């Protein structure tokens, strides 16, 4: 009873925070003067601007997806399946842009390619005219979003490759060489996983607001944000996000329909089974050089450009002076958000993993749907639902930002928790139950200690995503309570480039800090043991 009641309570809270705003937006869009009407949609569809925005949004998302998949999947195979030197370090470097607000990568590229950037100092202003016009527009947006989102494909490919049972590969290795094993066995088996990561990249690129806004490329999220924030035009802002909701919904529906049953049950990622690695032989150092150069160009060079541009103590002092309040707030909000998300992920993950009641599939689908939904959609939905005198204690405080985090990022914590639960034998909980332990006792004294590694990872991932959140925070932050990414983004409009570069470097450092702390705990305190 206590189990079902508690889990149901979490589902209700999640539905109120995450789903209600979206539902209300949708209802408002089809109810005109207390009647169901599609007049808003008719007006919307008759506007030529809508079609231009749709074309731009889809072009940007598709190009980013194609590029990210074409590069991320082979890189994932290389890192996950071969003995490439410095494997883990290279993966970490490639992953770095994913951990940062995407516009920071845009600023970093601007520090190289933009007017007054490093390149202009080396090659002259005439060259940077061209590189700058390349950066501002579709190519620049694709470059930045590719850098940011490619790690998703790479990391999921590595994960899927490592879940292929050793014996499935050995059985193939007995009859043929590695290249054919990869073509005939490994790639077909992980293809559904690669496609899933591509879908994720497509949806995240579709919903990205800060990069196209900075690089001045018109897409739906930018338009809806502008309508809502600059013109306070809620109905037009809503109209512009409805296509995003529908695209996200149908893409995920397609994924559920065509990919769900194609994901093969392999082994758990931490089964202790060794992984068969391809020994690269003579090509090892050649491949290492190529990958390292690519990594330098894509990740190290832009970040180094930021560091070079900001390299002065006085700049950092000034940057901290103008942003320390938002910096502290960000760390605080991200910490609170990550903790609440971990709790939500723990209980909703349990519900989904154990299929405790029939709602489990709906809960799973909705968490993923909300994660894939553009942040502007969630932000506008939250603002409209809670911005009223009776609920000002939520809308007028930091609670609204935490609500935004819960709405968008619960899927991250619940997915990580589910994969952790999958590695805990059911007999652990069953034996505690047989010993007479109630559900809460089992959850806190048996399952939580066994899942502590997964919960720590869930907290860290949630923290990073809350910390870098820009889209939701930008829309819902209460007056005087902006977060660090929002403050940086706002200051970008009228501050010198070295000052913005310093803020970006600070953002990178505060993102890496908790990773360093958890890494330290891992080594010294044996957190994961």
């Amino acid at each position, binding site marked *: 009873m206590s189990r079902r009641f508690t889990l149901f309570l979490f589902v209700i809270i999640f539905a109120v925070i995450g789903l209600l705003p979206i539902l209300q937006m949708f209802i408002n869009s089809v109810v005109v003067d207390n009647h169901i009407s599609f007049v808003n949609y008719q007006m919307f569809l008759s506007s030529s601007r809508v079609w231009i925005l749709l074309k731009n949004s889809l072009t940007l998302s598709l190009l980013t997806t194609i590029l990210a998949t074409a590069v991320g999947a082979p890189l994932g195979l290389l890192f996950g399946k071969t003995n490439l030197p410095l494997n883990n370090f290279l993966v970490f470097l490639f992953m770095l842009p994913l951990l940062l607000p995407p516009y920071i990568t845009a600023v970093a590229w601007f520090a190289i390619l933009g007017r007054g950037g490093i390149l202009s100092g080396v090659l002259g202003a005439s060259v940077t005219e061209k590189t700058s016009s390349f950066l501002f527009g579709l190519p620049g947006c694709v470059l930045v979003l590719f850098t940011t989102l490619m790690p998703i494909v790479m990391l999921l490919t590595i994960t899927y490759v490592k879940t292929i*049972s050793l*014996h*499935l590969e050995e059985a193939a*290795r*007995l009859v*043929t*060489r590695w290249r054919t094993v990869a073509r005939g066995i490994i790639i077909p*088996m992980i293809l559904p996983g690669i496609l899933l990561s591509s879908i994720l990249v497509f949806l995240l690129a579709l919903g990205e607001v800060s990069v196209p806004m900075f690089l001045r490329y018109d897409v739906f999220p930018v338009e809806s944000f502008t309508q809502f924030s600059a013109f306070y035009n809620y109905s037009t802002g809503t109209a512009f996000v409805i296509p995003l909701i529908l695209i996200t919904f149908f893409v995920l529906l397609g994924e559920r329909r065509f990919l769900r049953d194609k994901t093969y049950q392999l082994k758990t990622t931490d089964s202790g089974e060794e992984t068969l690695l391809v020994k690269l032989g003579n090509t090892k150092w050649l491949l290492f050089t190529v990958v390292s150069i690519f990594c330098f160009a894509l990740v190290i060079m832009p970040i180094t450009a930021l560091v070079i541009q900001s390299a002065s103590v006085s700049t950092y002092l000034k940057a901290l002076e103008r942003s320390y309040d938002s910096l502290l707030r960000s760390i605080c909000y991200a910490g609170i958000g990550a903790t609440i998300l971990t709790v939500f992920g723990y209980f909703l993950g349990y519900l989904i993993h154990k299929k405790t009641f029939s709602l489990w599939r709906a809960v799973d689908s909705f968490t993923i749907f909300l994660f894939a939904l553009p942040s502007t959609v969630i932000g506008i939905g939250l603002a409209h639902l809670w911005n009223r005198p009776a609920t000002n204690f939520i809308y007028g405080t930091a609670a609204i930002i935490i609500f935004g985090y819960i709405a968008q990022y619960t899927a991250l914590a619940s997915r990580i928790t589910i994969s952790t639960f999958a590695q805990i034998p059911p007999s652990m909980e069953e034996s505690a139950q047989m010993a007479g332990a109630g559900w809460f006792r089992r959850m806190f004294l048996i399952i939580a200690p066994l899942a502590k590694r997964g919960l720590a990872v869930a907290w860290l991932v949630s923290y990073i995503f809350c910390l870098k959140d820009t889209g939701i925070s930008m829309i819902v932050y209460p007056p005087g309570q902006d977060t660090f990414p929002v403050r940086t983004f706002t200051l970008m409009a009228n501050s010198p480039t070295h000052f913005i570069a310093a803020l970006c470097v600070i953002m990178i450092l505060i993102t890496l800090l908790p990773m360093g702390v958890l890494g330290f705990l891992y080594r010294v305190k044996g957190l994961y043991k």
Partner: protein
Amino acid sequence: MKNIEFKNVSKYYNLYSAVKDFSLAVEKGERLAILGHSGSGKTTVLRLLAGFIAPDSGTILIDDKVVASDGRIIKEPEMRNLGMVFQDLALWPHLTVKGNMEFGLKARGIPAEEREKRINDILQMTQMEKYIHVKPAELSGGQQQRVAFARALVLHPEALLMDEPLSNLDFELNLRLTKEIINLQKNMGFTLLYVTHSLQEAFAIATRVVVMKEGMVVREGTVKEVKSYFNEKFGHDIDRSEA
């Protein structure tokens, strides 16, 4: 004629010795069982022979040719012409029964006509012909076993390595498949190396049994000889018990 030979082979994992100074010769067409508790090193012996891992010291020969020696793999797994049936069967889930069997044949460049003939012949022998276009997940445990045998045998291997493939089956199915394996081996004449922890399975399948403990051979002989060793050791008829 010697088909397989291990000469003073050792394999270490960190400080733990999985196989220690292991020597063994297997005749062509012989049915040999390697018997031992879990952790005795019997699976490591199969993996060394298959070429998935290299011996830290010693030499492994197939048909009098050195395939691995002193930390080096000289002949890659795909060049050794061995078949293997894994404990978890390792059937590729994305391929049909035919796809599973065809993969190795295609990799070895066998022409399409010959491929069809071989697949049909083996499926007929294993009574699986009507499941040719079915994926492994749709088959029962026993049927999956048969497909795993068929996949290994369709390549006409020099030797078939079996790593406790029947351990997860019920007694009746285990008995039936044991008989089928013996029949197939007699008909096709391949060398059989069968790894198991079950005395009954080892005695039912093999003509010779090697007993391993802590990476070393502790007893070797015909079924009768090894049986009497265990009878003496346990003080009762081990035909009625399990290791």
